[in-house]
């Protein structure tokens, strides 16, 4: 298998080393001359000291006969362009992009990148297993910290999903006043039926938080939170 790796940071460096050890043919492109020389000293003459975003150098690196192009630079825009050029200009059968901003995953997939690896998403996934991150979000404190504005993001498992506002048991001293759905804010009416993904904005006294959590998020609020 001939793999073209673009980006000689830590990921590109170790990826290249592992692939060589596994017996694959590898070329690494790194535009920083100093870094390229340093890698070449360590793992041999598989390094091309040029920008993998430039069509001219991709061709020199043999992109037109690569089985896989892996774009692993630290910049999402560079990784996208490398994969698109490889796919559409050089007919590379398989492209892999590292994505740093998880929000870019959808765009990359839509634009034809075959495999997307998001370290941010993977680490986030590990953290979420241990710590519930879908808690109530405190947006602002009002008055002498007696009242606060809270956002609750309704996710799978929330008892409020599919129920109308009027059917929720909202604690005394607390009021839900708006819902953000698909980026659009709308007032909450008694007959508004809540959906997964909704963000509900509430104003309430600090002590209402536990009850609000139970109604909108699900499990009771963590004690040590």
């Amino acid at each position, binding site marked *: 298998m001939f793999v073209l790796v673009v980006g000689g940071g830590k990921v590109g460096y170790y990826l290249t080393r592992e692939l060589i050890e596994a017996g694959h043919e590898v070329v690494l492109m790194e535009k920083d001359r100093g870094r390229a020389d340093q890698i070449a000293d360590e793992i041999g003459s598989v390094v091309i000291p040029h920008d993998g*975003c*430039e*069509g*001219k150098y991709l*061709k020199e690196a043999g*992109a*037109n*006969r690569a089985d896989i192009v892996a774009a692993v630079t630290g*910049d*999402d*825009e*560079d990784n*996208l*362009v490398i994969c*698109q*050029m490889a*796919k*559409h*200009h*050089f*007919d590379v059968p398989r492209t892999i992009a590292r994505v740093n*901003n998880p*929000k*870019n995953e959808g*765009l990359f997939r*839509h*634009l*034809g990148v075959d495999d997307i690896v998001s370290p941010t998403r993977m680490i986030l996934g590990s953290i979420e297993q241990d710590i519930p991150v879908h808690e109530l979000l405190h947006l602002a404190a009002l008055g002498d910290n007696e009242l606060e504005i809270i956002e609750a993001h309704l996710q799978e498992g929330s008892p409020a999903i599919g129920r109308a506002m009027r059917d929720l048991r909202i604690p005394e001293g607390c009021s839900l006043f708006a819902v953000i759905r698909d*980026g659009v804010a709308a007032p909450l009416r008694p007959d508004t039926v809540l959906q997964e993904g909704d963000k509900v904005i509430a104003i309430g006294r600090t002590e209402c938080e536990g009850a609000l959590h139970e109604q909108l998020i699900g499990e009771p609020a963590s004690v040590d939170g």
Partner: protein
Amino acid sequence: MKTVIVGCGRVGAGLADVLDRAGHEVTIIDRTTTAFDRLPSTFGGTAVRGDGTDEDVLRRAGAEGADLFLALTEGDNRNIMAAQLAVEAFGARRTIAKVNDPVRAEAYGHLGIATLCRTTLMMSAVLEGFGLADGLGPGLIEARPHAHGHEGEAGSDAPASTTAPGAPAGAAPGAREG
């Protein structure tokens, strides 16, 4: 006309000023606030600090349904990605990305993004201006229809090295790299 410009350099700031004075609704985005010093004090549009390749920043800048979206930063790839976001995520009507590498400028024209190539533009100006040779075209490559996910068709419209704007796809057989 609702216009969003990414990159407040000389060209970005200049266009923002002209379009603003012509009565258009202009928003300009840059990663550094000092870049906005290039705008005249009379500028009546909106300046947004942020990364033009970040979907949230573009949404905040009102890219949704923009009539014209211009990606004019110093980074070819940043411009390409911003333009693709504008088209795919926000349905911008007309989008132009400044791409100074002629190979990429040509390639993205075929991928449905109109590109403006300073390299081609300036080479043409010199060659034609001094009567040295025929120019290379205006540097603006129009977007050609492209359906994503039809990789099998990519071979039929491989980019040519120098194709006049508007030339039909696939009109230059044998120009394919490699």
